[in-house]
């Protein structure tokens, strides 16, 4: 079989020769369209990426609170003023400035009232402090410390395990598959694993994860970080924060 001359006008081009006029006319139409198409992607792609949320961090602040090591490092910070309408303390998760749990020197103060210097990273009602230092402090007067929480009973919840430092706003989206490697690094380093769940109304609810012995589950959830999960366990409320107590062996990937 044959291929007849592919250029009926006998137009020919190599890069050291002038381009045939009809070819340059064609490229003058084609290239702007191609470039425009590429640039349209640059404009549209960011809008369809999951990379916007209200989470974020502000500046270093000193917090007076009671430092607790289990099930995850956290700080109970009394809320000033009239708190009749809500909890009278905040439950702040703790981490370090990098992908790790709070520094050893900070956690040596666990079980004490401290003034903790930390960077608050908050999204919705979930706050994590990147802790830098803690100094022993006097207990505030008139504050009734609640270390047992209030059991709300057994629930089954569905959601995704995140590291609350990235999820809260250090990274966006800080969740799901593309963030999985980073979340594994953070959680293996000691950042408290947290389940992000949504109720039927679309509200976002967070559950700090604990095992049945009030111990951290970090090392036992690394292989399912970012996966859709179903967990059944006892929900214990601390202020505005929920802790979900369940054996990690019973977590179901859905």
């Amino acid at each position, binding site marked *: *079989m044959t291929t007849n001359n592919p250029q009926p006008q006998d137009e020919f081009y190599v890069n*050291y020769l002038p381009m045939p006029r009809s070819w340059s006319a064609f490229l003058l139409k084609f290239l702007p369209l191609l470039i425009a198409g590429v640039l349209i992607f*640059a404009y549209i792609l*960011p809008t369809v990426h999951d990379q916007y949320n209200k989470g974020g961090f502000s500046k270093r602040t000193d917090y007076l609170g009671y430092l607790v090591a289990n099930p995850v490092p956290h700080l109970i910070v009394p809320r000033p003023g009239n708190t009749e309408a809500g909890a009278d303390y905040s439950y702040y998760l703790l981490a370090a400035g990098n992908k790790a749990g709070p520094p050893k020197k900070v956690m040596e103060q666990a079980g004490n009232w401290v003034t903790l210097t930390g960077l608050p990273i908050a999204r919705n009602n979930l706050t994590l402090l990147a802790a830098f230092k803690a100094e022993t402090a006097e207990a505030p007067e008139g504050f009734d410390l609640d270390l047992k929480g209030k059991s709300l009973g057994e629930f089954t919840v569905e959601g995704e395990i995140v590291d609350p430092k990235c999820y809260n706003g250090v990274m966006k989206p800080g969740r799901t598959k593309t963030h999985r490697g980073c979340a594994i690094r953070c959680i293996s380093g000691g950042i408290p694993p947290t389940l992000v769940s949504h109720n039927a109304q679309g509200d976002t609810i967070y559950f700090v994860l604990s095992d049945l012995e009030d111990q951290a589950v970090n090392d036992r959830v690394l292989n399912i970080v970012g996966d859709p999960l179903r967990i059944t366990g006892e929900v214990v409320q601390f202020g505005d924060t929920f802790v979900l107590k369940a054996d990690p062996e019973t977590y179901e990937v859905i």
Partner: protein
Amino acid sequence: MSVSYKSIQWNRQKIIYDLLLVATIALYLYLFVWSTQWFGGADVERGLRAIWIRAYGSAAFILLHVILSIGPLTRLSPKFYPLLFNRRHMGVVMFLLGVQHARGTLAWYHDFGNLDPIVSLLTGNLNFGFIPFPFELLGIGGLLILGLMAITSHDFWLHNLTAPVWKALHMCVYLAYSLLVGHVFLGALQTNKHPFLTIAVGIGLVWIVGVHFWAARKEAGCDRQTFLINTEGFADIGSISEIPENRAKVVTLAGERIAVFKYDGKISAISNVCQHQNGPLGEGKILDGCITCPWHGYQYRPEDGASPPPFTEKVPTFAVRLQGDRIFLSATPNLPGTPVEPAVIA
């Protein structure tokens, strides 16, 4: 063509090509980051590091589609040839974009932790189920192939590896593309569920497969017709009038494509495959007495298939006879560079 190796042989058109390429990519990256900030305002990640990771990655992936489209498009219309001659610069730029994407990912997602970032990247996610599969490994595989191609893209490697080995290595771009489609599907598309992204990646895949199939179908038509080879080993491949002056007719004899050129009242035949990058010599033209490849301008004398001194490339030649208006072509190739007396048109 050149007898010595230079890093890049610049000419005006290459400079225009590269400037256009770099300007488009710079504009893409700027627009991507600008658009992110414009639409996100205060809700965008501080420092924008992940935004740049996405900008570099998406730019590389789009550029890979453009690069893979050029080859088959030139088979469908020669007007795309000007996009082909400097395609290797496009490939190197795409690789560098991929490197920036990978560097950003390594630092942002895997540094500052309790493992070396590279160890974290390779071992952090060990769930090898379908959707949970560590998509990063697919990206690393694709990038390594593109890196090997970028490193060996210079003619120095083409000459030293030999054209068949070099060509086989560079055909691995299709393996790299497959790995990178998997990387995007199991990575970005699992986090970003907007249908636009899924549809765009799907259309890209269908386009790349479709345009290659389209071009292959056209090429296959060239190989389908059979010629009757006589007892002397020659086949009647058509009439002289079918071939325009200084141009060729391409025929397939005994499985080999042969370019039969008409020039200066003579007919000569050589292999259709350029020794440089296997370009289609039969779509070339005789310039200054030499067959000139349409891909990069490599030249061969029609009488012996050898490049004029000081160049050293050679292609096989074929004997040609004329009987009246009919061209009879030998199906047996001569060794590359073997002189063959052209058939003279009466």
